[in-house]
C-alpha cells in the first residue's frame, strides 16, 4: 500500500464525494483543465465533465455568492479559492450572507470553501496568511484545518456532507510534506472534535495545522529530557471543541497555545479565554502563547524563519513552563 500525501488526500476526498452525490460540484479559478493552482482538482474535468467542474472568471465575490446561491437551490458546492489570502475579496458574501442564512430564514447552506493557507513556502505577505480568525469569529460558519492526510480526507468529506458553510483551510506547506497510508474506502472525521495526538502528563500544548507537527517534534525532543507533553490537535476551529481543551488542561495543569497565525486576535487568545474562565482552578502556571509576531508575513527566508514559530521556541517555552 502506498502512502497518500495531504494534497492527494484532499483530492481523493472531493473525488469520492462527487462519485457519491451528484449534487456535489467544484467551482473556482483555473480548476478545470488546469486542475487548480495546487492541482487538487486535476483530472476531475475528464471524469465529471464541465457541468460539475466549473472554471470561473477571476471573481472571488461572485464565486462565493454563486456558491451560496447554488447551495440554496439544492446543490453542494465545493469552492476553491486560489489562495486563502484572496478570500478577503469575498468577505462580505461569506460573513454577511452565507453565514447568516440559517439564522435569518432557516435556509441551510451546505457549502465548502477550500482555501490554501499558511506559510513556510516563501509566499510573502499575500500568499502565506493564516486567515482563520475572521471566520472563527463569525457565528454560522464552521472552520476546519487538518494537520494530517488522514484528517484532510476525512474532515473534507465530513465538511462536504455538513449542512452548514465550512471554511476548509488547507496548509500549503503540508500539501506535499506529510503523507501516510490511508484506509481504503469511505471514512469521515467528525467536525467539532479535537484529537489528542500524543498523550502526556506534564503539560499540554494545543495547536492545529502545520503547528501540530511542530508541537509533536518538540514533544519528542522534550520526552528525551523527561518532559512529557500532551499534544492536542484542534482540527476544527469553529465550533471549538472546548471540552477537549479543558480536559487536557485539567489533566496536565499547564498549557501552551501554539499557532502560526499572528499573536494578537489569534486563536490562542480565545483558548486562553476558555481555559482562564473554566479551568482556572486547574492551572499551575501561566498560559503561554506561541505565535507569529504582529507583522505581515515577510518574504525573505531570514525573516520568514524568524517570523514562524519554531520547534526550538516550543521546547524552550515548554521547559520554562515545566520548571514553573
Amino acid at each position: 500500500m502506498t502512502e497518500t500525501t495531504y494534497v492527494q488526500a484532499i483530492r481523493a476526498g472531493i473525488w469520492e464525494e462527487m462519485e457519491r452525490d451528484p449534487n456535489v460540484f467544484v467551482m473556482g479559478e483555473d480548476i478545470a483543465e488546469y486542475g487548480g493552482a495546487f492541482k487538487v482538482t486535476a483530472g476531475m474535468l475528464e471524469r465529471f465533465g464541465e457541468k460539475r467542474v466549473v472554471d470561473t472568471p477571476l471573481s472571488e465575490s461572485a464565486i462565493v455568492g454563486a456558491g451560496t446561491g447554488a447551495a440554496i437551490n439544492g446543490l453542494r458546492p465545493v469552492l476553491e479559492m486560489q489562495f486563502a489570502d484572496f478570500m478577503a475579496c469575498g468577505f462580505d458574501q461569506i460573513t454577511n450572507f452565507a453565514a447568516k442564512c440559517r439564522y435569518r430564514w432557516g435556509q441551510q447552506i451546505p457549502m465548502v470553501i477550500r482555501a490554501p493557507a499558511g506559510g513556510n513556502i516563501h509566499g510573502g505577505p499575500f500568499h502565506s496568511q493564516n486567515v482563520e480568525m475572521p471566520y472563527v469569529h463569525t457565528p454560522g460558519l464552521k472552520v476546519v484545518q487538518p494537520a494530517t492526510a488522514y484528517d484532510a480526507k476525512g474532515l473534507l468529506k465530513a465538511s462536504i456532507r455538513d449542512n452548514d458553510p465550512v471554511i476548509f483551510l488547507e496548509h500549503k506547506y503540508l500539501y506535499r510534506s506529510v503523507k501516510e497510508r490511508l484506509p481504503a474506502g469511505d471514512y469521515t472525521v467528525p467536525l467539532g472534535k479535537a484529537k489528542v495526538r500524543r498523550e502526556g502528563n506534564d503539560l499540554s500544548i494545543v495547536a492545529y495545522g502545520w503547528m501540530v507537527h511542530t508541537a509533536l517534534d518538540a514533544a519528542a525532543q522534550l520526552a528525551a529530557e523527561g518532559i512529557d507533553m500532551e499534544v492536542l490537535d484542534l482540527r476544527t476551529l469553529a465550533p471549538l471543541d472546548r471540552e477537549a481543551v479543558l480536559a487536557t488542561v485539567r489533566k496536565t495543569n499547564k498549557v501552551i497555545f501554539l499557532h502560526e497565525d499572528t499573536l494578537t486576535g489569534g486563536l490562542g487568545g480565545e483558548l486562553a479565554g476558555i481555559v482562564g474562565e473554566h479551568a482556572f482552578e486547574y492551572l499551575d502556571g501561566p498560559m503561554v502563547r506561541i505565535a507569529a509576531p504582529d507583522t505581515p508575513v515577510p518574504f525573505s527566508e531570514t525573516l520568514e524563519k524568524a517570523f514562524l514559530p519554531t520547534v526550538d521556541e516550543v521546547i524552550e517555552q515548554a521547559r520554562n513552563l515545566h520548571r514553573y
Partner: protein
Amino acid sequence: MGALAAALPATEIDLDLARTLLYHMVMMRELEDRIETKLYRQGKVLGGCYTGRGQEAISVGSAILSQPGDWLTPSHRDMGALLIRGIAPKEILAQYMGRAGGLTRGRDGNMHMGCAKRHCVPIISSIGASVPVAGGLALAMKYRGESNVVFNYFGDGATSRGDWHEGLNMAAVMDLPIVYLCNNNQYAYSTPLDRQMNIDDVVERAPGYGLPAEIVSGNDVLAVFKATRRALEHVRGGNGPYLIECKTFRMSGHSAHDRAEYVPGMLREEWSRKDPVLMLQKYMVDREWATEQDFKQIRKGVLDEIDNAVEWALAQPFPDPSTLEDDVYETAPSGGRLRSAP
C-alpha cells in the same frame, strides 16, 4: 388572491390579468402605507422602514410571470414580488413588527424578508450582493436541466458595486438563466444618478457583458409585463441572461426618516403624474374593463385584508428569548450555550 397560482402564469393582457396586477399594486401601496404612515409612527414597527411607493409596477409586472420553480431575489422596493409569490400581508406585517410569526421569526426586520418555500431570497442588505447569489440559483437550474429562471431585482445604486459587475459577468460567461430587473429610480439614498455613473442609462453597461437589454417605463405595469415576457422568452430559451432597466422614481424618502430634501420638487411632481396605479386604472377605464366604482371596491377589499392582517400580526407574540441561540448551526455545538463556555 395572493397565493402563487398553481397554474402557469398569465401571459396575455386581458381583464383578468389587469385585475390581478391592480390588486397586487394596490395591496403593496396600501400595505406599505399602513406600515410607514401608521405602524412606524405608532412605534409598532422598529428599525428601518423602506417603501416602494411609486415603483409598484416593477415587481408586480414582472413577478406575475414567475413560475413556481423560479427563484426571486427582490430588493427593498419590491414587496409586490413577495405578495405575488404567495406571502401573506399578515406575514409581512409580523416581520416588520419583529414578531415570532414573521418571515424571519423576529431575527431580521423590515424588508429583510423572504421565504425558502416560496423561492424568495430575503434581501441581502449589502446592496449588490444578490447578483452573484442569483447566479448560483440559476446555475443550479442549469445544472439540473430545468427551464426555470431567476428574477434578480436591484436598484441603480447597486450597479456601482463590484458584486454587481462580477455577478453579471459570470452569469453572461456561463449563460445562466436570469432576468435582471433594475429599478432605476434615479437615486441611491441621496445620491443622484450623475454622481453614481457617467452614463445616462444603466443599459449602456449591458454590451460590456454581451447581454441583451432594454429600457422600459417602470411605472407602466403592462410595459414591464411585456418586457419581462420578452426577456423570459430569451432566458427560458437557454440564451443566457437579459437586463431590463425600469425607469421610475422613488415617491418617498430613502426610508421613513428621510425627508428627501435633496430631490428637486419639480422632479417629484413630474413623476407623481405617472402614478403606476392610476396609469393602470386609466388603461382599464379606457377599455371599459372597470369603473371607478370597481377600483374603490378593490381598495376597500385590500384595506379590509390589511385591517385583519394588522390585527393578526399585533396579536403575535414576540420571539421567546430562549430561542435566541437556535439555528446558528444545524446542530447546536456541543458545549451548550454560545454565550459562555461549558
